[in-house]
């Protein structure tokens, strides 16, 4: 479980996150939705300690994420996996080396054990026989899958995905959604996804928070979002459907 308590963040005097409090539950898919530029990425980057918030606390199962204490921050990060919007694969390394990297850095596994684990992770994302390929040779959907495989290489407790479907076609988007759902259920992790894809919301969302101009404008469940009692959220949802 991750808890946010009164998070605020400004860039050059412009308030991007305004007093956000939220709870992200373990074993659930927690969605952060909202239009572009409303602060979803800044919120997620703050949660993993890439951005230092101005005010508020971030708690990982009651461990405080302390920006000043790098050793503790590193401890928490050992339990975090993150899928970036750009996939953020190491371009100079093969698929196998990408997934192997965290194992090389943080475990004492032998080369064989590492390769076993790499193949297990690649199998979990339905990506076999791509071990020797380089990121430049992969499609967007494959890159995301390698990104997920790398994120789960170590035994993580928290999975962050920033717009996992951006740049993907609708069919591939569903595949990625299903994968994230499967991984969340199999490993009982706390998953947080930034998205503006309403299909994702209705397919796999458990808990949802809606961010509007840096504020938490609404939160609720998948059932509740079908009849939103909120104008901005209603507009956001209506804009997603053509039919």
């Amino acid at each position, binding site marked *: 479980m991750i808890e946010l308590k009164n998070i605020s963040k400004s860039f050059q005097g412009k308030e991007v996150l305004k007093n956000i409090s939220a709870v992200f539950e373990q074993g659930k898919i927690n969605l952060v939705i909202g239009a572009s530029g409303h602060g979803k990425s800044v919120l997620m*980057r703050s949660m*993993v*300690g*890439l951005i230092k918030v101005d005010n508020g606390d971030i708690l990982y199962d009651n461990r405080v994420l302390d920006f000043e204490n*790098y050793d503790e*921050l*590193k*401890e928490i*990060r*050992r339990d*975090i996996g*993150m899928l*970036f*919007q*750009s996939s*953020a*694969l*190491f*371009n100079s390394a093969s698929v196998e080396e990408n997934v192997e*990297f*965290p194992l*090389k*850095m*943080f*475990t*004492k*596994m032998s080369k064989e054990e590492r390769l076993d684990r790499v193949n297990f992770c690649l199998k979990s994302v339905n990506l076999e026989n791509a071990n020797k390929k380089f990121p430049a040779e992969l499609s967007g959907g494959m890159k995301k899958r390698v990104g997920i495989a*790398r994120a789960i290489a*170590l*035994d993580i407790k928290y999975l*962050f995905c920033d717009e996992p479907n951006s740049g993907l076609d609708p069919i591939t988007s569903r595949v990625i959604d299903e994968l994230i759902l499967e991984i969340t259920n199999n490993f009982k992790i706390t998953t947080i996804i930034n998205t503006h894809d309403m299909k994702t919301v209705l397919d796999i969302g458990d808990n949802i928070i809606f961010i509007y101009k840096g504020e938490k404008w609404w939160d609720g469940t998948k059932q509740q979002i079908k009849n939103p009692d909120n104008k901005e959220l209603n507009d956001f949802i209506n804009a997603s459907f053509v039919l």
Partner: protein
Amino acid sequence: MFSKPEKTGVFIKRVFAEMVSVGIGSLPIVIIVSIFQGAVTTIQTAYQLITPLIPKPTIGTVVSDSTILELAPTITSLVLAGKIGSHIASEIGTMRINEEIDALEVMGINTSSFLGLPKIIAGMFMVPVLVIISIFLSELGGIVAGQLSGVLTADQFIQGARMTFKLFTLQFSLIKAFTYGFIITSVSSFHGYYTQGGALEVGESSTKAVVYSSVLILLSDYLLAELLL
């Protein structure tokens, strides 16, 4: 199961990889620049000293001394600032804009030292090696050019070079090379690491890395001369 890091092994491998990249990667340009530099210095020195009062070996002395003391370390390093500096800045800068550095950071890796340190160590070690090669090849270029143009014989050149050779000159040259190696790799890593934006900004970081490294090389050249000579 996932306890202690295997970092030292990984780190040593990265340092070696950078040494190969810095060293072998820069060898062709260093070879070309050094040979021509020695050749041209010899011919121009001869042109300026062309009076019967000055013995021929003096040309060897002048060329050799200026090569060891200034031309080999400084010119080579300025060339390397362009070659290695732009490479490092664009490599790290590209990692920054691709969010690769963020990905490393979220894994719990101290990215500035993980990315920068192997390059800096490799630079401090390999630039002196390249400068030694440069000294050797410049002298060779000078000898060959002197012989071919009939300005002075190889024996006269070597005799002149030996006349005023001091070990300290060579040591001083290597101290310079070591300093420049540090400047080039650290300045370029810094500019790459703090790239913000996109591909255009990576190019800008790369240019900044070369310009700032070059200026700092010249500045420290002056300071070292003041301090140590």
